[in-house]
């Protein structure tokens, strides 16, 4: 009985606590976040900061953030001779389309952002597109390589990276073309998830165009062990192996191949090979793996904000401690596209609803060259609003670094082919 009075009072305490939380929850919609006094450009970022796609999500974030920081250092985005600072707002989509839609609605309605920078995955992008359309807010996607994103002709969405169906096919063609002795056969592995599967389809189509015999086309569940698939492919003994997947799956494929002592003459993978993390985690085993890059620090482009591609690379490395790959670069370049469009539009922030629609039209007319390369969005077809200007480069990892090896005019080093046995 002694404990009873204590129990009751604690109960009450919890009750009051719950009521307070309830009151806050009910009141929250009516609270307003404090507004900055000086007018700024508000940029909303929707990306995967948690969930299965955190890796790519954080790469996009680094790219977007670097642009905002560099731009703000320089005084901000210039409109009509005046410069305006950039304020970034984030929405974690938790790698889930519905949460991405919530984030878009919040950033647009609650934070009243002027422009959105897009998610990493195609699923979230597809769920966000209708909301951009509804409010007439343009969204620039620094990632989103999946061709599905552009098929529905999203009026307000723009993509910086050429869709993977255009790049993976070409790259495998380049690899086959440069191989000596000529590769005759290929096996394609794809992780059975949205982007990776389309990458694998691109590989297969490209291989068929290049006259290679496709010995196997295997889609693997994202949670499966790779050894059965590798053994099966090893038994077919293809000259080339192409893998579509994200960084974790690619690391697991290399590890499984090495542990089974299977080394094809050529190995091409996408996406994640160009990211320094791949080579860092695999060490020497990463060497020889080929990948696709639509941008490298060695490309001969430059702009006023970031300088040359090489300078961008150094700056990003100083900021994040790792060298950027093309996804990060494309995300940073998204900011440049926005800044250019805003300048041409000539409207000061905050943008009205009409301004945002006009911004969309301005973005659609983009025709600039950045450190990332030329940017110009398609106006029709299956890649509507996608920037298919960048030319995919075949890279190969040599001593832990991505080096362009093809096509001929972009090559900086000789393609290692056939690959030496595992050491």
């Amino acid at each position: 009985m002694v404990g009873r009075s204590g129990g009751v009072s604690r109960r009450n305490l919890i009750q009051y606590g719950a009521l307070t939380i309830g009151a806050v929850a009910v009141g929250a919609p009516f609270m307003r976040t404090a507004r900055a006094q000086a007018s700024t450009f508000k940029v909303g970022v929707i990306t995967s900061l948690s969930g299965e796609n955190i890796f790519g999500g954080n790469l996009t974030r680094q790219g977007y953030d670097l642009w905002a920081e560099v731009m703000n250092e320089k005084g901000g985005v210039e409109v009509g001779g005046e410069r305006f600072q950039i304020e970034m707002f984030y929405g974690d989509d938790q790698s889930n389309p519905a949460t991405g839609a919530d984030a878009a609605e919040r950033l647009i309605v609650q934070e009243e952002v002027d422009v959105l920078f897009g998610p990493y995955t195609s699923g979230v992008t597809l769920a966000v597109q209708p909301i951009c359309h509804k409010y007439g807010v343009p969204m620039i996607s620094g990632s989103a390589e999946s061709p599905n994103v552009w098929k529905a002709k999203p009026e307000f969405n723009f993509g910086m990276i050429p869709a993977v169906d255009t790049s993976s096919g070409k790259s495998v063609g380049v690899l086959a073309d440069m191989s000596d002795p000529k590769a005759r056969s290929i096996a394609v592995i794809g992780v059975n998830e949205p982007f990776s599967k389309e990458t694998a389809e691109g590989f297969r189509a490209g291989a068929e165009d290049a006259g290679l015999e496709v010995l196997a086309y295997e889609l693997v569940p994202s949670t499966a062990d790779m050894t059965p698939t590798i053994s099966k492919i090893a038994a077919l003994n293809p000259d080339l192996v192409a893998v579509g997947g994200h960084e974790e799956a690619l690391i697991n494929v290399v590890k499984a191949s090495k542990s089974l002592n299977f080394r094809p003459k050529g190995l091409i993978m996408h996406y994640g090979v160009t990211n320094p993390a791949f080579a860092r985690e695999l060490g020497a085993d990463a060497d020889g793996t080929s990948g696709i890059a639509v941008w490298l620090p060695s490309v001969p482009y430059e702009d006023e904000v970031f300088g040359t591609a090489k300078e961008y690379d150094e700056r990003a490395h100083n900021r994040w401690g790792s060298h950027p790959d093309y996804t990060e670069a494309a995300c940073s370049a998204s900011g440049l596209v926005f800044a250019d469009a805003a300048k041409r539009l000539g409207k000061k922030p905050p943008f009205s609803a009409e301004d945002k629609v006009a911004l969309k039209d301005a973005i659609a007319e983009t025709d600039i060259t950045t450190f990332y390369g030329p940017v110009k969005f398609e106006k029709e077809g299956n890649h509507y609003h996608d920037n298919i200007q960048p030319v995919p480069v075949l890279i190969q990892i040599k001593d832990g670094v991505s080096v362009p090896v093809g096509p001929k005019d972009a090559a900086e080093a000789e393609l290692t082919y056939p690959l030496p046995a595992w050491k």
Partner: protein
Amino acid sequence: MRGWFPIVLLVCGAAVVFALPELLNAYWLRIATGVLMWAGLACSWNIIGGYAGYIDFGHSVFFGIGAYASAILMGDAFGWPFAATIPVGLLAAGGVAAVIGGPTLRLRGAYFAIATWAFAETLLQLATVLEITGGTAGLSLPPFLNERFFYFAMLTAAAATYALTWLLFERSRFGLKVKALRDHEPAAEAMGINTAAVKLQAFALSAATAAVFGSIYAYWVTFINPRSTLGGDITDQMVVMVLLGGLGSLWGPALGAAALFIVNRIFWMYWGDTTFYIAILGLAIIVVVLFLPNGLAGLFARKTQNGSQNAGRALWRALTRPGVER
């Protein structure tokens, strides 16, 4: 006097619910829509999990069936209007539940839980390899972007779910039968209750209601894929919401859904640029389990339903006097 209280509460509640679209901006209306959806889903799970005592770890299957029914039928191949797809999803989910329920409901406890989960995982894998579901790439629906429509659609569905649950489980003998089989199946049978039939009915009902929310969800979010509709985390959320709110109580799931969803979104809003909020969410769940054994609904119950020892106190005792058996 007391008799009036629920009616007053109901009227006030209805007034608030109908006023919300006027008071909230589109974003908060979206959150409110989400709360209604999860409240409804939690309630649907509570039918089989709370009232019937069968822990369904694969309830996302029925949500997914509803979502895919709408997405497929509204797609170019069929072009049905939205309203016509709801009954299809509802009947399909109820039908699937009726078919798998027969053999599956013979299992008890953890075995039932894991059998349903295995079934859900099977269906998820199937959805990734089938053509009609769009495989892993998923399906897009024709966008219809009227926040109010979806708010009221979810509201109607949630209100109907709760009303039905109230009628069937708190005010009819069907509820008595279901609760009896939950508490002691052999005894329920000895009382003449056809437990096999009763639990199958409860399972099908639970499945059918979940499907309705799946249909509305698909149309609302405009894009679905296997992970977003059939994934295990959908079920996990339902289960945790019900446990937080109060298992087997009518309003518990609604409380749990509102609390978890809103708290999640508030953490996400203010600390969403870090991942720390996920850890906080986990901590919040642990605290509720330890200190609110009957869920949030237990806080507002007139008296504690059982004189049970509070686990928080048990924990305290365990830590201060280790080794002392109760």
